[in-house]
């Protein structure tokens, strides 16, 4: 069985680790001290790039690369720490804030030193009252001990950290939505480019980084790049010549919830499979896995055929899904996928910020279609139409058979794809919330089509046995679009 490797969470349960003195006993702030004593800021940035660290907040973008876009000649520059954590199924940042806030501060200090940043805003979701309280207390202590404020530890650096509460809007987790919200406006995402790295908060260069991403920094500096890159798989992308290394280094705070016996946060090397993770989390609650959502509710669903998919950035992208925030939601054989989709679509319909027409209108429309399917009023066209496909003579065309049309399923796919097209990966919206809507909508429907059809046919929700409910990979359009994983070999 795969072993947990606790690095970020190693001292999480040490009593009073939230206080400076106890944190200090466990090497607290020594990594920051090492950084300022032994390295130039540029060297730290290079280390982070070499470590292959990828953002843990959702997009999985290389942190070092993001830092390289920040123009160093424009002052001031800002760091925004994204502690908005609202992706359904994600809860790892909360524990860092509530139990080990000094670790986050140390990560922020290292980032500020590397990027020459003086001001950091930690955007904490409004519901995290305890987390904000703990972080505020830790920041206060760090000021008292001289790790924050003017002339930090006699180095001449000035670093300030402020917490900023959100107010219950999911879209403020999107980096430009966060920036708008921080500026005191509605949290409506901005058009990109310009990217925040160039023009972010108060129109100045801004680094936006998730809590977990920042918490990796002390360990990269403290233990070195080599130590860090040994964890997790690095693939060789052979589409490039010479093959480009595709790093999935480090550990991930996997949040697992739903139908497992011991839901919780497990810190493991990137790259274990779904099956292994379920085993680590105390095994399945139920008889059979029906579906797994691998990266928060925005990620396309995986079926029981795909449980050997490795939960890392590369493998999940190849499986046409994503690691996203690392929130893994497991569903057993008793769950109805139509019902699950309805729940998720209600969430998105509620959380659209309303700026773009396809998203503002399309998302509630998708929800309404799923709602009426779930209510048993799904529209089925009674006329049968010729079925197109490969005919007997081996050519594409009219097969001579007829098929029933499930009007609502066609409509669902069409509306979703007009918000953001999941096959071409193009979106008609300002932010990728659009993709986060159509990805689940289309993937659930394509991969569990029999259950949707049954609901329309029978006029009520019907939970089919797993084997019957799932479309096998060879028949599934969603899978056919997959890259060929053979292109990627372990380095």
């Amino acid at each position, binding site marked *: 069985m795969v072993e947990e490797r606790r690095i970020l969470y190693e001292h999480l349960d040490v009593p009073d680790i939230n206080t400076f003195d106890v944190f200090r006993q466990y090497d607290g702030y020594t990594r920051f001290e090492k950084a300022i004593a032994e390295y130039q800021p540029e060297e730290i940035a290079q280390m982070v790039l070499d470590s292959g660290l990828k953002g843990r907040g959702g997009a999985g973008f290389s942190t070092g690369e993001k830092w390289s876009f920040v123009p160093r000649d424009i002052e001031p520059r800002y760091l925004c720490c994204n502690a908005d*954590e*609202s*992706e*359904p*199924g*994600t*809860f790892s*940042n*909360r524990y860092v804030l509530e139990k080990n806030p000094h670790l986050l501060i140390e990560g922020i200090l290292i980032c500020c030193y590397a990027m020459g940043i003086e001001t950091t805003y930690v955007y904490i*979701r*409004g*519901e*995290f*009252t*305890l987390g904000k309280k703990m972080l505020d207390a830790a920041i206060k202590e760090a000021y008292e001990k001289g790790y924050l404020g003017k002339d930090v530890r006699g180095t001449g650096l000035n670093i*300030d950290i*402020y917490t*900023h*509460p*959100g*107010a*219950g*809007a*999911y879209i403020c987790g999107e980096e430009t939505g966060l920036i708008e*919200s*921080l*500026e*005191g*406006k*509605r*949290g409506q995402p901005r058009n990109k480019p310009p990217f925040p790295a160039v023009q972010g908060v*108060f129109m100045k260069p801004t680094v936006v980084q998730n809590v977990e991403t920042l918490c990796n920094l002390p360990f990269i500096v403290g233990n070195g790049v080599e130590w860090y890159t040994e964890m997790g798989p690095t693939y060789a992308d052979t589409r490039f010549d010479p093959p480009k290394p595709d790093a999935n280094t480090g550990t991930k705070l996997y*949040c*697992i*919830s*739903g*139908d497992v016996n011991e*839901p*919780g*946060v497990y810190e493991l090397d990137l790259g274990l499979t779904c099956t292994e993770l379920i085993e680590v989390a105390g095994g399945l609650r139920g008889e059979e896995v029906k579906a797994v*959502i691998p990266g928060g*509710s925005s990620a396309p669903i995986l079926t029981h055929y795909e449980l050997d998919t490795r939960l890392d950035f590369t493998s999940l992208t190849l499986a046409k899904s994503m690691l996203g925030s690392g*929130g893994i*939601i497991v*569903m057993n054989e008793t*769950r109805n996928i139509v019902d*699950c989709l309805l*729940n*998720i679509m209600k*969430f998105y319909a*509620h*959380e659209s*910020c309303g700026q773009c027409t396809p998203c503002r209108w399309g998302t509630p429309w998708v929800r309404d279609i799923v709602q009426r399917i779930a209510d048993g009023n799904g529209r089925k066209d009674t006329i049968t139409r010729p079925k197109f496909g490969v005919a007997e003579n081996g050519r594409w065309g009219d097969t001579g058979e007829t098929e029933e049309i499930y009007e609502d399923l066609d409509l669902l796919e069409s509306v979703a794809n007009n918000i953001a097209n999941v096959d071409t990966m193009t979106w008609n919206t300002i932010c990728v919330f659009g993709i986060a809507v159509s990805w689940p909508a289309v993937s659930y429907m394509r991969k569990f089509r029999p259950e949707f059809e049954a609901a329309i046919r029978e006029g009520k929700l019907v939970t089919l046995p797993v084997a019957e409910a799932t479309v096998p990979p060879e028949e599934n359009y969603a899978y056919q679009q997959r890259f060929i994983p053979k292109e990627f070999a372990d380095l």
Partner: protein
Amino acid sequence: MSEELIQIETPFAFNEENQREFDELIGRYPIKEAAMLPTLHLAQRQAGYITPAVMKYVAELLEVTVMKVKDVVTFYPMFFEEPVGEYVIRVCHTLPCALRDCKVVLDHLKAKLDTDIASETNLAKGTTADGKFTLMKVECLASCDVAPVIMINDDLYKNLTAEKVDEILDNL
């Protein structure tokens, strides 16, 4: 919002403690407007909900138009424009909680408090007659490992069942 409407309301101003907190946080940002969310949180804590008078006061403090404040208040679900109960009960109903029977918790609360669920535009619907509780549904509270969860004001309650809800309400 006309001037008259604002006039008939009791004017609003920060008490001493909140004024001190406000003075501290306004210094954190290069522009005053950026203090909008923390200021509104402070004001709501003091006033209970965001009245037109509060909006006017905040607008003056941050040197923006009242409309701009209203614009923000209406965007964020955590700001209330109507009175709410002494205890605001937020029941999470997103997928991971739904997989752990949050519906039982919600139905139990509805029956026990004898109230409907508030909607964002109608908080009164979810507020008990004695004004003690407001019941509302919210999206994922980032505690799915201990689902189903609810929040009562600032406190989170985990792994709930109908019995646990009874116990919690009795101890409030």
